[in-house]
């Protein structure tokens, strides 16, 4: 298992500024550096918003009983952007929300790093909770991102959200 067959899916073709422009415009982007939560929150400023709900998915130190050292996320950038744009558009139709922004990070992440961030604003509180959870679930189901866990015994394996 060599990294060269995944090199292209560990990094983003676009610049960081382009990534945040896409997030602001389409509501979803893929990023290969640390997620700047403040930059995303700034996209959700709205005087009509009484509720803001956000989710951060962080790399944790265990998966079931196994100690995790680090994780590497791989993504299919262009498909992810097309699918992410559709997810956010559908969320805005399904829920009474004002805006939603989500970003997924790829590349090598350490324990505690944020892998995915989803933020939603709405006039009232329940649509933000519902939309945030739905967007996260749909990202996990449909966005072409894969991850490999690395353990302290130097093993690694591909993970699946379906098992």
């Amino acid at each position, binding site marked *: 298992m060599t990294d060269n067959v995944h090199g*292209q899916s560990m990094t983003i073709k676009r610049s960081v500024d382009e990534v945040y422009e896409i997030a602001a415009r389409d509501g979803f982007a893929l990023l290969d550096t640390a997620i700047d939560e403040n930059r995303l929150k700034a996209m959700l400023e709205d005087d009509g918003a009484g509720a803001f709900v956000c989710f951060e998915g962080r790399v944790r130190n265990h998966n079931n009983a196994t100690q995790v050292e680090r994780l590497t996320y791989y993504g299919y950038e262009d498909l992810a952007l097309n699918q992410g744009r559709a997810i956010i558009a559908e969320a805005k139709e399904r829920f009474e929300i004002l805006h939603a922004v989500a970003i997924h990070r790829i590349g090598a992440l350490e324990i505690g790093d944020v892998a995915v961030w989803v933020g939603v604003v709405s006039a009232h509180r329940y649509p933000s909770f519902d939309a945030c959870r739905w967007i996260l679930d749909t990202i996990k189901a449909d966005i*072409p991102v894969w991850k490999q866990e690395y353990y302290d015994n130097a093993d690694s394996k591909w993970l699946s959200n379906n098992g």
Partner: protein
Amino acid sequence: MNSDTTMNITILYFASLADEANCQTETVHVDTSTSLTELYEQLRQKHHFSQPQQQLRVAINDYFAHWTDTIHDGDSVAFITPVAGG
């Protein structure tokens, strides 16, 4: 390269399929009547992919597609193993 009866398709590989194919991308020259399921079957035999087609999704030109969709000369195709984002 391509005639009226053949087409060039760019295949993109990710995750375990990239491991098994030992590459990220390749271009294949196939008959124009080739379906997506036939295309995967040819590549599965070539690279000894462990996953049956039923476990995979497929994308054409960076959008998710149906296995029954037709492909055309110049398309890029990706077989998508179960995702694990979040």
